[in-house]
């Protein structure tokens, strides 16, 4: 798989403040989560990728086009959903969509058809005929997403796509992102603070802190623990279950009231665990290989950076 975004030694200074420092990064096809604490340089990185700001040093290629010299070409093939609550005053939802489509070069009649089609895909009903300034935060969020995909871009940069959405809409939005990646092979850069969203749709993660790339790895690899362990979710008495496991010479660690982590692999110990559960009168709800949580990875990375700075 060849990378769609390739950055080499990218640096961006705002006066004396260095927002991005020697970024070397490759974004492969698929969905990549871009994480980082506030002020890590995520927005600056997005602006550099879109050609809205010029990098102070370094170079990069987006969709095969060099940064800095082919900004218009890059933007015509990239869809960007900004985090800010931005809209064009005085236009209805469908007019805003048409305008976005036509600014991307879609002919007028085709823009109307495409706008309706995308708004249907995004679950926007008759409210598309209302003025955008009367929309709720969630509706504006959906409209911004629709505007980002109206021209069928190859690369989508989504900045906090699920913030401000109710749980049902959040699931629907993640589904749309999944459909675009899985069925239409779009490359998505998902910039968010909601880590479960990243776990739900992303295959790779980039963690940015203090203007530098700290982690750039597949989620599968990152989630693996240094030594294998089994994660057991059960119902019943945890004390009795742990006692039964000890009798079978298995150590265990209680992670949550109904969750245990047991060292070893499922192939080795699953039958013993089932026996211990039966002896302790517990019901096993799931038995899975234990993984590092993304939250833990993120916190560890940020702590390392803070330590290094202090």
């Amino acid at each position: 798989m060849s990378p769609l975004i390739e950055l080499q030694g990218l640096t961006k200074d705002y006066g004396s403040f260095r927002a991005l420092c020697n970024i070397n990064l490759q974004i492969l096809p698929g969905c990549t989560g871009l994480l980082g604490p506030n002020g890590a340089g995520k927005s600056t990185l997005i602006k550099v990728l879109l050609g809205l700001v010029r990098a102070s040093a370094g170079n990069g290629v987006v969709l095969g086009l060099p940064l800095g010299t082919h900004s218009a070409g890059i933007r015509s093939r990239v869809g960007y959903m900004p985090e800010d609550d931005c809209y064009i005053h005085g236009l209805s939802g469908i007019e805003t969509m048409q305008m976005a489509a036509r600014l991307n070069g879609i002919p007028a009649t085709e823009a109307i058809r495409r706008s309706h089609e995308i708004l249907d895909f995004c679950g926007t009903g008759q409210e598309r005929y209302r003025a955008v300034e009367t929309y709720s935060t969630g509706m504006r969020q959906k409209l911004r997403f629709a505007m980002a995909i109206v021209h069928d871009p190859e690369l989508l940069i989504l900045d906090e796509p699920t913030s401000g959405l109710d749980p049902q809409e959040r699931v629907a939005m993640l589904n749309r992102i999944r459909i675009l990646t899985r069925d239409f092979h779009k490359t998505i850069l998902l910039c968010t603070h909601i880590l479960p969203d990243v776990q739900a749709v992303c295959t790779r993660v980039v963690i940015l802190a203090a203007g530098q790339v700290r982690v750039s790895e597949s989620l599968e690899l990152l989630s693996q623990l240094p030594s294998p362990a089994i994660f057991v979710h059960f119902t019943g008495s945890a004390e009795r279950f742990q006692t039964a496991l000890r009798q079978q010479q298995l150590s265990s660690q209680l992670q949550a009231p109904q969750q245990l982590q047991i060292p070893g692999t499922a192939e080795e110990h699953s039958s013993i665990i089932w026996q211990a559960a039966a002896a302790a009168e517990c019901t096993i709800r799931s038995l899975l290989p234990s993984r590092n949580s993304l939250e833990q990875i993120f916190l560890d990375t940020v702590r390392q950076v803070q330590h290094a700075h202090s």
Partner: protein
Amino acid sequence: MPIHDPGYRTWQGCTAPLATRWMVIAETGIRRAWLSSWLRRMMFFAWLPACVMGFMVFLYEQTSANDPNAGRTMLGLSRMLIDPGSSASSSFTDIQTALERRDQSPESERHLFWSALLTTLFRRSQPFILIPMLGIIVPPLISQDFRSRAFLLYFSRPITSLHYILGKAACVMFFLASITLAPALLLFTAAVLLSPSLSVLASTWDLSLRILAASLAIMIPCTCLSLMLSSLASESRYASFAWFAIWIFGELAWRTAARSAAVGSNVVVSCLSLFRVFSDVTAWILDPRLVMDDIQTRLMLLAALSAVSLAVLFRRVSAPLQV
């Protein structure tokens, strides 16, 4: 949920050239502005003077020296309407003389009369529509984009600051042209059609170019200035206030200074009022017989005003992307 939901579909059509994208911004701006009922009313009133002047051309061409009633009507209208500053104003003190002169040298007198009408249109009627009209439509054009942070929606697409400004300027120029260039050109066309034969074009063709030049002399500085004011504020009412203040306070300052006869003749003082500057420049362009002192200063003022406004506008529009 629609009855037939095809879900997401890819799109692989031909796209419009990059250079034409500004037209989308212009078209959207025009459609949004046209929603204002005030604008539609103003547009109606903006065309009335041209219609009255068309009637005057009709009278001029149809009145014969032995038709006293028509002659009196034309004389009355001419005295009332024709700009006293134009070189033709002295021709309408006596209708008998005016008609005799018309019959003796029809070509030069016709040119004189038409240019007087056009000067009047540009100096005495259209500015009173132009100022409030731009005060209504231009202030929200950029300031509302600032307030609603629409810049990210525009500039994340393949357009540049130049396209954006061009689109907004085209929107303003469309409305300006529809109250200056369009009625004046239509008046000229009507005058040609009402005249005895199309051969009058041989002696009056220059007026069409003069109309274009006078319209551009108004449109370019007004567009640049009004858009700059809109870009300086995120609240459109402040931009409106600044727009009206420039015209009203400028005129008041000129009137105050002009009370002193010695100072009033000074060209620098007349530059205090944008209204006077535009009035003098359009009269100079449309009325070739008019002698005007130091017109270069006024032209330079308009050029400088346009250049400075454009520079500020570019800086303001590019600024949100730099942070």
